[in-house]
């Protein structure tokens, strides 16, 4: 044990004992049948663009959305089911060029910083109370996909949307094992540091496009 550590801990242990209060009852809100609407409303309130899609039609819808925005190159995760579906659907179509995130950041930095105008990732869940997307990046779908390109597209399944963060943590068993990095995203990057005036895209994506895959 380092000297600093042992000295700090011994000072803390020398303090008088404090009562250990019980955690009083508290339950986060629940929305019943209105859950998806709440999720959508909250995300839209934080400036996200939300679309309800089907498992089959989202790649073509996304192609149209990105064409309207003039996006010419999009980063994607070639190893995921989502990435494979996208690549198959867009093959041969008039669509943005797909840039695979298939190497380490050391080699990909320039693609991420300069070339990718958008990126598509999946979400592991959604949270209605705050309109948040749960991102759980991994080796196939790295962390910076949702951060560096100016447009971030997220696919989330309606079935994975819960009422609250507490409900998501319980349902997905977070305490049992956290990934390298888990992220909640509610809207595009923003700041109000100058006179409390909202401005979007200060460091992360300027736009957040959410595709909600409905129950089938």
């Amino acid at each position, binding site marked *: 044990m380092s000297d600093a550590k042992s000295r700090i801990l011994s000072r803390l242990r020398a303090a008088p004992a404090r009562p250990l209060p019980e955690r009083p009852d508290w339950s986060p809100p629940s929305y019943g049948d209105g859950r998806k609407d709440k999720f959508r409303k909250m995300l839209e309130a934080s400036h996200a663009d939300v679309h309800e899609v089907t498992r089959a039609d989202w790649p073509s819808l996304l192609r149209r959305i990105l064409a309207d925005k003039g996006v010419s190159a999009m980063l994607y995760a070639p190893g995921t089911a989502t990435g494979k579906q996208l690549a198959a659907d867009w093959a041969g179509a008039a669509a943005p060029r797909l840039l695979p995130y298939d190497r380490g950041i050391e080699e990909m930095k320039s693609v991420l910083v300069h070339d990718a105008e958008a990126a598509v990732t999946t979400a592991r869940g959604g949270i209605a109370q705050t309109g948040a997307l749960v991102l759980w990046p991994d080796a196939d779908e790295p962390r910076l996909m949702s951060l560096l390109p100016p447009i971030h597209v997220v696919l989330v399944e309606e079935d994975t949307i819960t009422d609250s963060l507490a409900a998501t943590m319980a349902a997905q068993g977070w305490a049992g094992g956290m990934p390298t*990095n888990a992220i909640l995203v509610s809207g595009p990057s923003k700041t109000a540091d100058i006179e409390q005036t909202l401005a979007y895209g200060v460091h992360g994506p300027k736009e957040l496009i959410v595709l909600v895959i409905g129950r089938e």
Partner: protein
Amino acid sequence: MAAEAKKSDFGGKAHVALNDPKLRANFRRAMDGLMAKRAIQFADPDEWKSLRARGAANRARALARLPELLEQLDARCTANGIQVHWAETTEEANAIVLGILMKAGAKRVIKGKSMVTEEMHLNAHLEAHGITAVESDLGEYIIQLAGEAPSHIVMPCIHKNKGEIAELFAEKIEGQVYTENVDELTAAARKALRGCFADADAGISGVNFAIAETGTLVLIENEGNGRLSTTLPPLHIAVTGIEKVLEKLDDVAPLLSLLPRSATGQPITTYVNMISSPRKPGEKDGPQAVHLVLLDSGRSRVYGDTELGDTLRCIRCAACMNHCPVYTRVGGHTYTFTYPGPIGKILTPQIEGLDCAGDQPHASTLCRACADVCPVEIPIPDILVRLRTEAVRPSATAGVKGGGSGRSAAETLGWAGWKTMYASPLVYGLATWAMGLVGNLMPDSLPMLKQWTSVRTKPKFAAKSLHQLAREKGFSDE
């Protein structure tokens, strides 16, 4: 906190701030906006009450078990591959951070917003050793360009209006023309900072909550600069005070529902960034090494007293300063040290010492607005009163740094005289009679009286006391 000796001069600085109409307008506008936004978030008093009770209990539990939780946090982080360091003082913490950077050969550092590194004056320490540290939070970037310190713990450049920022950018950012358009100013900062992110050898961040159960560091933000600082460079150093620990991951949910709503009136921040390890084999990005520096800097001393120790529950939402009638009028720089407003008024004297910041607990009307809005139920006004007492009559157990330093012989004598006078009808009668005769002849500039009359009119003494008048009217003393 500071390496250089600083002393609070609240009275002097407040006088200057109060006579600065631009500063007052900037704060008034900002605080009114923040208060209104928070009020909308907590419109349901029952929800506020139960949520707050849970949040306060989660923080109180963490403090009750602090030493064992810190050991658990250390063990869990280490098992996750995060390298944990302990620092007793800010000097030690600075040396640890510098050591990590030098070992990695890092020359350029990008920083996410962190009040603890402000407390350490880390940037100056790194600069002195040839390492460039660039602040990437927009507000922090602005004040770094201006060479200033934050005036608010959540919105560091709240004291500046867009005209001042426009001038600053035009002067300091190459190729930038003067514009007051907020979108254009924001875009200019994005452009200037993108290169810094891409080139940075290391990222430094603070921590909002450190979870002992899982060894997870939780960081919240709106801009994405915190995520960039902790993801893009090959090395990440997180610095936190030892009090930021929580027992369980579940404890974070109610606190995340309290913190952004209290701070800026947002239901949640744009990003909640939860970091549990460095890059694992096969992963394509994220830093290869993550370090956690646990800083004491006086906190274990604060912890030594159970009442004063409640100060450590703070989750740094800034609601207390947003609602403080004093802070709103004088701004953050009046408080001299890193943490302004009501939380600063109880934290700074305990960390720096009452001999150095003993005037701060007095810079309050005890209106209790801070206690009403505190999301973790810190009894700020009670602690303010306690610290006023500690400054003159230090308790044997608390050991507040500089306790007793506010005691003056003249004041002690004054109160002793007061006590004698009020304890004896004879002395009281003589004293009031004497005051009736000579009280109005006393000049305003007498020592001690001067402090009262500097902002008030000296009271006029009646020629006859109430007792005399009553007797003349035929009332009996019985």
